[in-house]
């Protein structure tokens, strides 16, 4: 089973952005992906007061092909409660944090409170982890070490220039996972597997902006054996979310 751990659906008329579920489903069909984990672009509830319910409706219509992750703004006092609602009532499978969007420090107390709630609920926290301030691997590492029982996923594995840092952070923190979306260097992902093994690397595409078939091809360029490839493409995501049967 292939699981794409990082995709987006949203509707932002003010920006002229439309990312309907159909865009994800079309890409999945072309690439042979079975299930995609989707998040919004806007951070509930600050930029989108009904984003979680809308996401739930979109996912529900996809009949099991899509699973949702809650993208929340740490500065909202309601955020931990919303995460509980999303996971326990709506069946969401994780928390997404994007400090470029929220300018909330990964190691600030509002963010840590949310990560602790994700830990309590048994779901992972997917960080946008790249080259901008507030998103670099070493900044996120502070949060990972502050909540050592939480599973922290470094989405994009450090982006263009912080891939080696991301590998180092994953190597020395067993609660940190790496995710493959958009980082344009297959050799760095290969180095990640050599450094930490294939058990903490998950496939993600960041579709629909990125093409899921290209992102999948990138992972296949790593030359992993069948067992490791199966883990990276789906097995690890199942284990990470605790959803054994998707």
């Amino acid at each position: 089973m292939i699981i794409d751990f990082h995709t987006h659906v949203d509707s932002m008329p003010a920006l002229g952005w439309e990312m309907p579920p159909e865009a994800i489903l079309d890409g999945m069909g072309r690439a042979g992906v079975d299930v995609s984990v989707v998040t919004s672009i806007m951070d509930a509830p600050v930029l989108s007061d009904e984003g979680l319910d809308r996401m739930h409706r979109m996912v529900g219509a996809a009949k099991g092909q899509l699973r949702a992750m809650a993208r929340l703004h740490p500065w909202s006092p309601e955020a931990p409660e919303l995460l509980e609602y999303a996971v326990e009532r709506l069946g969401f499978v994780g928390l997404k944090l994007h400090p470029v969007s929220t300018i909330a420090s990964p190691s600030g107390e509002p963010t840590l409170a949310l990560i602790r709630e994700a830990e309590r609920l048994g779901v992972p926290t997917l960080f946008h982890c790249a080259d901008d301030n507030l998103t670099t691997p070493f900044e996120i590492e502070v949060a990972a070490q502050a909540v050592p029982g939480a599973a922290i996923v470094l989405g994009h594995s450090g982006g263009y220039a912080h891939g080696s840092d991301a590998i180092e952070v994953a190597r020395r923190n067993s609660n940190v996972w790496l995710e493959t979306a958009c980082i344009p260097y297959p050799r760095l992902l290969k180095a990640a597997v050599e450094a930490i093994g294939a058990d903490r690397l998950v496939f993600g595409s960041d579709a629909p902006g990125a093409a899921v078939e290209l992102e999948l091809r990138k992972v296949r360029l790593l030359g992993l054996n069948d067992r490791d490839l199966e883990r990276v493409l789906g097995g690890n995501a199942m284990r990470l979310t605790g959803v054994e049967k998707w």
Partner: protein
Amino acid sequence: MVGDWLDALVFVGASRYEPGVEVIIESVLDRSRDTDLICVASVPPDRDLGRANRRVFDKCLHSGGRARALARIDPLEPGSVQEARELVRLGCIGLFLDPWRDSYSISNCAALDAVVEVAEEHGIPVTVESGFPWVSEPLQVANFAASHPTIPIVATRGLQMNMSGLSLEAASIALERCPNLYLLSSGVYRQDWLEALVTTGFADRLLYASMAPDFHPELERARVEMLSSASERVAVANAKRVYGWD
């Protein structure tokens, strides 16, 4: 399916930044019989750019017409103008500037003027390592391109590097402002943006480049192959036109 390819940028030789990696032109040409190359010297371990440039030029000269060289020039080095002039006289088909590695701003470096004059005298392109923060951001490169409107300015990495797509708007503005600005497709994970360039009239301004060994040629080719209506132009025709490759 694209037939022939012209890879508009390959780094050749040993690199001080990647010990143990050395790209040999003959090997690349042997591996990819359908691909001609535009090569530039990697910064060698001893940083002797003059010798590295001549080594690459000599290899290209003996490639049976399948490889041609750019002259890597550090404008801050004494004698850089004379070096550029000599390499162009020998037959280099363009200049290559790396403001990130060589520590200057592409939009504000007095020493650049005399170097670029050499390209202007001969009407040859200048390739700029682009997308690097502070030194070659999209509108910094646009400022440079606007100052040299008579020659093509070729920006690497789609002119931008940001994992949230924060520079895509600036890159699009740069293209609109500067008709002499061209982009290399390498490393651009946002396939939707590449497709948008094609559909908004910029298909003739996009050039395939692997930028190997930094990027993976197979993955970079796949990005171009997906631009079905424009893939032939991006794969070969545009680079031939820009570099006067007959």
